[in-house]
């Protein structure tokens, strides 16, 4: 399986804040998935329970991969190599974190503002500015991972 190369440089102060925010959100994702369970109307309680437990367990494995990345980033970042499997886990966990951040911190923002990124940063409190910075960083990480995965897939086909 191909390796993915990431080049991440972060302000140590921001990185330290981000770890704290990600820790808090990860704890909430241990109790409830980021997506709503939507099964058929006739799905029984046992299926719902097994479904939710399965989602929570796989999400924890995904979040572990992202935490490993943050540990490897050390004080401020640099060049990192991750496997394709680790990259997929990071992508999923970044999505879960962004969904939960949206739900808990940016409920007041319209879908349009979130989709287009046309957000008045100065309307946020300093704490929310940091949270929004994490929200944006996770999207940037996803873009980098997707570009690398695409590149790796096309190298494989050549």
């Amino acid at each position, binding site marked *: 399986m191909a390796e993915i190369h990431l080049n991440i440089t972060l302000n140590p102060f921001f990185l330290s804040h981000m770890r704290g925010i990600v820790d808090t959100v990860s704890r909430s994702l241990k109790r409830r998935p980021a997506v709503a369970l939507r099964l058929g109307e006739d799905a029984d309680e046992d299926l719902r329970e097994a479904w939710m437990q399965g989602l929570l367990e796989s999400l924890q494995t995904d979040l572990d991969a992202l935490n490993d990345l943050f540990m490897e980033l050390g004080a401020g970042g640099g060049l990192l190599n991750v496997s394709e499997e680790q990259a997929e886990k990071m992508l999923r966990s970044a999505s*879960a974190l962004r969904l939960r951040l949206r739900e808990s911190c940016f409920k007041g923002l319209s879908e349009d503002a979130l989709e287009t990124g046309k957000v008045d940063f100065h309307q946020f409190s300093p704490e929310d500015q940091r949270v929004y910075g994490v929200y944006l960083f996770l999207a940037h990480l996803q873009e980098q991972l997707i570009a690398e995965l695409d590149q790796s897939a096309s190298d494989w086909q050549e």
Partner: protein
Amino acid sequence: MPASTKTVENPDTDTSVAELLPWQVIVMNDPVNLMSYVVMVFRRVFGFDVEKARKHMLEVHEQGKSVLWSGEREQAETYVYQLQEWQLNACLSRDG
């Protein structure tokens, strides 16, 4: 309006027809997941080529939802579970 109508006593519509309808895998829009991410997930879960994955992503984005697959319940559940593992807003629905 038809010229004549015939009243059917005890019409034979029934739940067995509903039971035969295929199950649909539907993905609904959310303002959080990136377009490129959604395309990648559709390719990985359903094995779509880029054009087909992109077409469904745009349907989700512009119309609010897209039907990705339809067929037997067990396979539909597997797809919905995988999509939810990828953090997409997916659900099962009965066709028809």
